[in-house]
């Protein structure tokens, strides 16, 4: 096993899937010769050639729209949008075509493709490089939305995304790209899409998060457990859509308390959806109102103020304490 950061782990998954299946084609801006602005595709152009690792013209709608054509014709395109903030140009294709080709043709033509994109705040970037807009994609029926949080699960989930029969929006938390390393096995490993991970078991409170915020949630848990003995069940969503309702409900039925941490604005968000689902399926088990720690309903401020506007471990600790002492 090698210790890899998330970018290297993603690179490993891409490399192995390309080696395994000649239908896998990559496309994006600066992904070939340059190996991607984050180096996620480093070395693949040299190894697989320009026919399979395509430096496309600078046009996101073009990338996603033509990828759909490739998918319809039997290839498996894995495209990179340089930053999620540029994906909205391609949103028309995602909403109007990619997400519904299977439905439109009654399963005759499908869209097995992956749209990878770095997303999220905390890397001191300029405008459009920091938002978390997973809700847009998750709100689109027919798109699967996956957000890894560590090198190992990024690799395992990406493998599943590439082999999935449907379009997967693969949101890579930029902040976690090089933040830490983890053992990632060389041999094949995958993790099912649609399944959350119970990172740590506990019986007092359920804490749910995903993406870069998993680190914030983990810090909060460590902090609290230093102070006192407390059983927190920490759940990493990993797949945002379709949500793993079973894991969430089982946990909340056990603990009776729930705190959700996300970077995106709170309104109309993943956290809102989880609350609605718990309301439907586990309301009577609740011992306290559900709390969410989220971003504000605004554009992420430029980086001078960015940190102030992101959820902080101490903020999560306070939310947990308030929920426990309700």
């Amino acid at each position: 096993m090698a210790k890899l950061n998330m970018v290297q782990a993603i690179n490993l998954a891409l490399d192995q899937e390309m080696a395994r299946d000649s239908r896998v084609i990559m496309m994006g801006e600066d992904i070939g010769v340059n190996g991607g602005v984050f180096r996620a595709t480093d070395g693949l152009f040299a190894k697989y050639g320009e026919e399979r690792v395509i430096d496309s013209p600078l046009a996101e709608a073009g990338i996603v729209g033509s990828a759909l054509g490739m998918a319809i014709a039997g290839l498996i395109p894995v495209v990179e949008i340089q930053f999620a903030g540029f994906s909205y140009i391609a949103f028309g294709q995602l909403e109007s075509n990619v997400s519904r080709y299977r439905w439109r043709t009654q399963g005759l033509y499908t869209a097995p493709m992956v749209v990878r994109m770095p997303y999220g705040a905390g890397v001191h970037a300029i405008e459009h490089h920091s938002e978390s807009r997973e809700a847009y994609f998750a709100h689109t029926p027919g798109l699967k939305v996956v957000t890894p949080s560590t090198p190992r699960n990024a690799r395992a989930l990406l493998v599943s995304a590439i082999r999935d029969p449907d379009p997967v929006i693969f949101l890579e938390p930029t902040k976690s790209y090089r933040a830490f390393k983890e053992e990632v096995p060389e041999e094949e490993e995958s993790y099912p899409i649609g399944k959350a991970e119970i990172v740590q078991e506990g019986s007092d409170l359920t804490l749910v998060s995903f993406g870069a915020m998993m680190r914030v949630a983990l810090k909060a848990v460590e902090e609290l457990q230093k102070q006192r003995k407390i059983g927190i069940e920490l759940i990493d969503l990993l797949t945002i859509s379709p949500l793993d309702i079973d894991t969430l409900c089982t946990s909340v039925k056990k603990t009776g308390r729930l705190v959700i941490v996300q970077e995106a604005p709170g309104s109309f968000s993943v956290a809102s959806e989880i609350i609605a689902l718990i309301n439907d399926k586990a309301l009577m088990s609740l011992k306290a109102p559900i709390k969410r720690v989220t971003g504000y309903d605004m554009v992420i401020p430029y980086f001078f103020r960015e940190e102030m506007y992101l959820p902080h471990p101490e903020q999560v600790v306070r939310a947990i304490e308030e929920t426990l002492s309700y």
Partner: protein
Amino acid sequence: MPLEVIGTFNVSRLQVLDHNGELDQEFDPKLSSDKLLKLYYYMLLNRRTDERMVKLQRQGRLGTFGASTGQEATICAATLAMGERDWFVPSYRESFGAVMRGMQLSKIFLYWSGHEEGNYTPEAPRTLPIQVIVGSQALHAVGIAYAIKYRREKESAVVTFFGDGATSQGDIHEAMNFASVWKVPVVFICQNNQWAISQPRSRQTNAKTIAQRAYAYDMPGIQVDGNDALAVYKVTKEALERAYQGQGPSFIEAENYRLTMHTTADDPTKYRKNEEVDFWWQREPLKRFRAFLESKALWSEAQQVKLEEQLNQEIETAVRDFESQKNFKVDAPFEHIFGTTHSVIESQRAEFLAEQLKRQQQEQEQERR
């Protein structure tokens, strides 16, 4: 009906100053000495500020930043051709055009150090802020041009800038098409600096020139040596005159070169050869312009030394001005979400401020311990 040719096009390229600073009299826009000196001043300010900013970035005093080194002639000469009543609609490489139109230099530093305040520039009217989404500004330019036409404004048009990479975006096609159908007063300036991050111009379009695209929209199009300030000035001025006279849009491909990295986060040695960069350094815009000024006896080594000293001081003053600004309101972002107040936003603002207070208290406690 027999097969017949129903349309042909040709593409012209203009150069007035060659790369030694030799002037072609026939096309000389005959700028006054004042204007020539003003142009040189801003081109050099652009160059020196970019150099300073790269250093500031390396010292951690600015964030990631993209210089416009090598593109000063296109930026500054096109802006010089514009009038106060014209609108300036840039991408992220033309900030010095905004400076020429009155924007404080320190706003550039504010922007690249992560402050929205850098975009608040009432001192430079009709000058839009940096646009990061490649190509999207061209459509805004067309809308502004429509408003100008609608209001029957005199001597008013829009100049918008974008890169060679941007020409691949649907937005650029749509903007040119709308402008042509509506016949609105807009000048499209494509700064073809040969690269879009790691991608050479040839990966964006298979056409021989970008300028020829104008033909498809039935608008005047020309390629110009973008390292030649006089040529850029001349073609921009002519395009603006046509726009003022109700003749609609024009397209200019200004061929220059991105002499340094895409941004400070980029390493161009990964994708381009030093020989190519050296070739273009021979053609860079300042050297030839200075040679031209000297040939007209408008410039000397002594003046150069004096100007360098002056620019150095101006830049230092702007840096100091920027770094001494302290009282940034932390909750300012809540003020600019909507133009009307809403309880959802206001309650979030209250939560935010309470949260900041708690974080501060916690920090102070930790310090005491």
